[in-house]
């Protein structure tokens, strides 16, 4: 059993979730892992991002969980899709599921602030609430 420490009161917990761990999970299971982590005040980093459909559902579920003075929502950052790594229309026609494969960072809206973002760099400030 790997060693697990309790998070320090002064620190911010970062969960780096491998593609392997997310593989085989349903969309809702992935969304639950993300939102449960974020609602605990953690920063969740996904080795591979979500599909556009999962992103759409993540926004929808996040909205239903926002509650005044408790949870304001999420900040999410990933590199923009380049478009040519998706397999395109032909890929979808052949039944190929588009896989974004983009590192994605998700955190509580009141603890993470994007400082700079472009195609190759995301710079964010993470603070303790």
């Amino acid at each position, binding site marked *: 059993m790997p060693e697990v420490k309790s998070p320090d009161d002064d620190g911010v917990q970062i969960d780096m979730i491998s593609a392997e761990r997310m593989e085989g999970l349903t969309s809702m299971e992935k969304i639950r892992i993300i939102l449960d982590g974020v609602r605990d005040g953690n920063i969740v980093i996904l080795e591979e991002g979500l*599909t*556009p*459909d999962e*992103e*759409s*559902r993540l*926004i*929808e579920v*996040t*909205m*239903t969980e*926002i509650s*005044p003075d408790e949870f*304001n*929502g*999420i*900040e*999410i*950052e*990933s590199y*923009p*899709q380049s*478009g040519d790594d998706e397999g395109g*229309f032909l890929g*979808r026609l052949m039944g190929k599921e*588009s896989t974004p494969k983009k590192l994605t960072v998700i955190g509580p*809206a*009141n603890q993470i602030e*994007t400082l700079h*973002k*472009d195609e190759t760099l995301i710079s964010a400030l993470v603070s303790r609430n």
Partner: protein
Amino acid sequence: MGLLTELRDSISRAAATLFSEQDPKRIGIYGPPNAGKTTLANRIARDWTGDAVGPESHIPHETRRARRKENVEIERDGGTVEIDIVDTPGVTTKVDYTEFLEHDMEKDDAVRRSREATEGVAEAMHWLREDVDGVIYVLDSTEDPFTQVNTMLIGIIESQDLPVLILANKIDLEDSSIQRIRNAYPQHETIPLSALEGDNMDEVYDKIAEYFG
């Protein structure tokens, strides 16, 4: 014979009405809060139907329910394009009621507005997945277009193979930059306009007819 011919003609006219005419396409107006979506929806609706779609405001999340204006007939090149316009709430990943307090709102009103806003965003996402045939994506050209919400939403729209027209709104303002939007989303055509002033609406209607007709 005359009666038979008349009967046959009227049946074929009825069949033509039933089967040939397409239902108007539902075009969703999407974008971040305060991009001018309702101002655009009202401009289009007023230009072609004489009615407005909903109230406009500088306070974010004024539109908290998707509103549909049906059967908007846009005349172009001697023909008409009939669409339903769906004005949607601005999409975001966060809603903080305290931001509304800065607009002289009481706490109860701000909390209610934030709750309605979250419901509206969820509704807008649902419409996008299930109920629109095309998208007009409105961006405030004075703001940085390179946000995660814009990137995600355009990705979601592309993944569904929906036709999308990007509009760079608020070109009447000094800080407007159309090129910044073109650089951020080079895979799509960007049309500049001021929905408030009615600038460049002719080109917008040409493109609506071209993309969604």
